[in-house]
């Protein structure tokens, strides 16, 4: 009898416990507080060759911050494949980190969810003011006319990495400055049994970064000035076709690259199989794969004709990582303090050196390390010929829809099917129909 009663009591208690935990789920309407001032959770993006490398780079800096501010930072490095989903889940549940890294192209999309702390003048003052940052980097922190949703942390730009030995063997004296030169060089390189250029045909983001630049070079944009998708514009179609034609018609990108999505093209380059690589801040990655710094050179990404500049001479997106504060944080002051620490001149130098990126903080850029010949190319690209991806709320949908269209076109090219203006236009039309109506 006693045991039965005990069981009954147990059952009832457990039921109540369950009911309570069920109701105790996240309330998502909060706006940040200072309830737990001694700890912070930080989601870092994967910048190094692996997550372990990131932990090695960041942990000593976090320890430094703990000593200075007395706040312990719990670090989690989130792989790129998961980061956006994790942020979305955190946004819907209201349970997330205090501070997080975001890909700068997501700024406007995430800004629209209202999950990130807006950086108004008052908040910017807490970290030393907006003037400390380079303009091009600030252009990728949210929709125009709104307070930025993030602060620039690392800046990167695309460049043309070339294998010196392969070029010498093929009798090429200098890296190509135009696409025409690149395809001409490709014939000489392929005659020597090497491949010319790598691409990540199944990586949606990579596809977007490249067709965006090609569109700029054709004088076109994927969005109208009032933010409506305009994917089937003749110049956009021509731009996308030119990129896919590098495989389909010019045959400088091997068909096998159509299924690449895990940075295999970087490995092909590092192993000396391939002459050119279009990549952002690849130095640290190449080094970790055993390629010596003397073996390759860095040149600006080719243009249609002439030299890189603004307008149709753009040759890179403004690539980079921003740091944001999650609006639901329980340690608002600490989070702001941490952003101030991460964007301080000293930390900017240390971190950007480790990740072979360029500091978006003006004062930190002065450091000699960022004036080496290779970094000079990246720096001048960022300063003179890089453009920010569209800062519209539907940017992340655009990446998926158009990125998939380009992936499918690469699959067609790889299978030997013709890639024509009509087939490109049809794919882009389908992509445009998938975009949200708003």
């Amino acid at each position, binding site marked *: 009898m006693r045991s039965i009663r005990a*069981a*009954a009591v147990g059952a009832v208690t457990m039921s109540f416990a369950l009911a309570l935990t069920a109701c105790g789920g996240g309330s998502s309407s909060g706006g940040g507080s200072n309830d737990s001032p001694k700890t912070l959770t930080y989601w870092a993006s994967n910048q190094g060759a692996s997550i372990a490398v990131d932990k090695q780079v960041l942990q000593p800096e976090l320890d430094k911050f703990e000593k200075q501010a007395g706040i312990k930072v719990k670090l989690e490095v989130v792989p790129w494949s998961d980061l956006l989903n994790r942020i979305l889940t955190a*946004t*819907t549940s209201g349970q997330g980190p205090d501070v997080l890294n975001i890909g700068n192209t997501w700024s406007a999309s995430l800004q629209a969810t209202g999950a990130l702390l807006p950086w108004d003048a008052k908040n910017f003052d807490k970290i030393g003011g907006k003037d400390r940052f380079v303009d091009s980097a600030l252009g990728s922190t949210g929709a125009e006319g709104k307070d930025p949703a993030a602060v620039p942390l690392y800046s990167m730009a695309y460049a043309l990495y070339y294998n010196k030995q392969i070029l010498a063997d093929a009798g090429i004296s200098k890296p190509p400055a135009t696409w025409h030169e690149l395809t001409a060089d490709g014939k000489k390189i392929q005659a020597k049994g090497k491949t010319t250029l790598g691409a990540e045909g199944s990586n949606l983001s990579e596809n977007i970064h490249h067709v965006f630049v090609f569109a700029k070079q054709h004088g076109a944009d994927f969005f109208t000035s009032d933010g409506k998708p305009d994917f089937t514009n003749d110049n956009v179609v021509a731009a996308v076709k030119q990129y896919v034609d590098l495989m389909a018609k010019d045959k400088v990108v091997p068909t096998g690259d159509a299924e690449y999505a895990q940075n295999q093209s970087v490995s092909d380059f590092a192993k000396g199989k391939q002459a050119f690589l279009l990549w952002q801040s690849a130095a640290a990655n190449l080094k970790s794969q055993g390629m010596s710094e003397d073996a390759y050179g860095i040149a600006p990404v080719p243009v249609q004709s002439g030299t890189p500049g603004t307008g149709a001479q753009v040759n890179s997106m403004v690539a980079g990582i921003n740091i944001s504060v999650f609006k639901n944080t329980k340690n608002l002051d600490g989070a702001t303090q941490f952003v101030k620490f991460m964007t301080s001149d000293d930390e900017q130098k240390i971190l950007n050196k480790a990740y072979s990126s360029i500091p978006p903080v003006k004062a930190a850029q002065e450091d000699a390390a960022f004036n080496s010949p290779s970094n000079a190319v990246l720096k001048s690209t960022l300063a003179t010929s890089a453009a920010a991806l569209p800062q519209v709320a539907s940017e992340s949908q655009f990446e998926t829809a158009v990125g998939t269209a380009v992936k499918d076109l690469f*699959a067609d090219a790889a299978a030997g099917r013709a890639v024509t203006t009509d087939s490109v236009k049809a794919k882009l039309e389908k992509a445009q129909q998938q975009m*949200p109506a708003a």
Partner: protein
Amino acid sequence: MTATALEEPVRKTSPGAAREPRRRPGRLRRIGLPYLLLLPALLLELLVHLVPMVIGIVMSFKELTQFYIRDWGTAPWSGLDNYKVSVDFDAPVGEALLHSFFVTVGFTLLSVALCWLIGTAAAIYMQDTFRGRGFLRALFLVPYALPVYAAVITWVFMFQHDNGLVNHVLHDQLHLTDKPSFWLIGDNSFYALLTVSVWKGWPFAFLIVMAGLQNIPRELYEAAALDGAGMLQQIRRITLPSLRPVNQVLILVLFLWTFNDFNTPYVLFGKSAPAAADLISVHIYQASFVTWNFGTGSAMSVLLLLFLLVVTGVYLLLTSRGRRTADA
């Protein structure tokens, strides 16, 4: 499962309770006790299954886009709009969903048929005792025991165009194709997906059929052999009819699992599957997570749920009627 396990021992004690009819409150308490003990399981069931399902259904009537996900309550009601978009087969979203639905149906039918066929054949061959039978049985179960993610990643490596094992064997060694094929993009992706799905699914069919076979009395076969029935006759007249109830459940379970499988296509193809292998689970995932429109995604999920409910219902109705006439 839990419910019956909890109920059984309690019922056994009830004759004892009947012996003392005078103590009514005590009796009441004992009758209530089983329900009380069921309460935690019931609440957990509610929490894990029903509540999310209801929330999903509610979401499907809301315009839950990126502008509202931070605070669901503020998302405006959209009536049947999400459903209209999903089933408007002339517009791109509905057309894509319908295409994905047909791909999934074709894929599921093929996969279930092959899983069942291979599993049953293997189980029948493994019935006779021979040296190494235990080892083979264990070996056959390996694909089922491996973690899905690790197993499918291995398949991704094997299906690679440049360095994959599949192309190495088919093209380099056997010279069956003119040039190396693409398996992870384009039209071949359907066969890649089917291969992995069958490889992963048949051991389960094997396991269940093997268990079912243990219940068929040996004498039936002996009698049949005396009557001059050959191997095929025995399988057709004894094995398959005896396995009927087992197969009935097995095929339903395989169908539901395969139709809803998310891990295999997601690990094979990532966020955007090729059109030829665009299974509905990944399609819905993409409609909600990648385009950040959870309302439409939920509406599609509800439609899928309804479809599977109807299929399951009709299947159970047909098979149970068939069994009743067979029993009669």
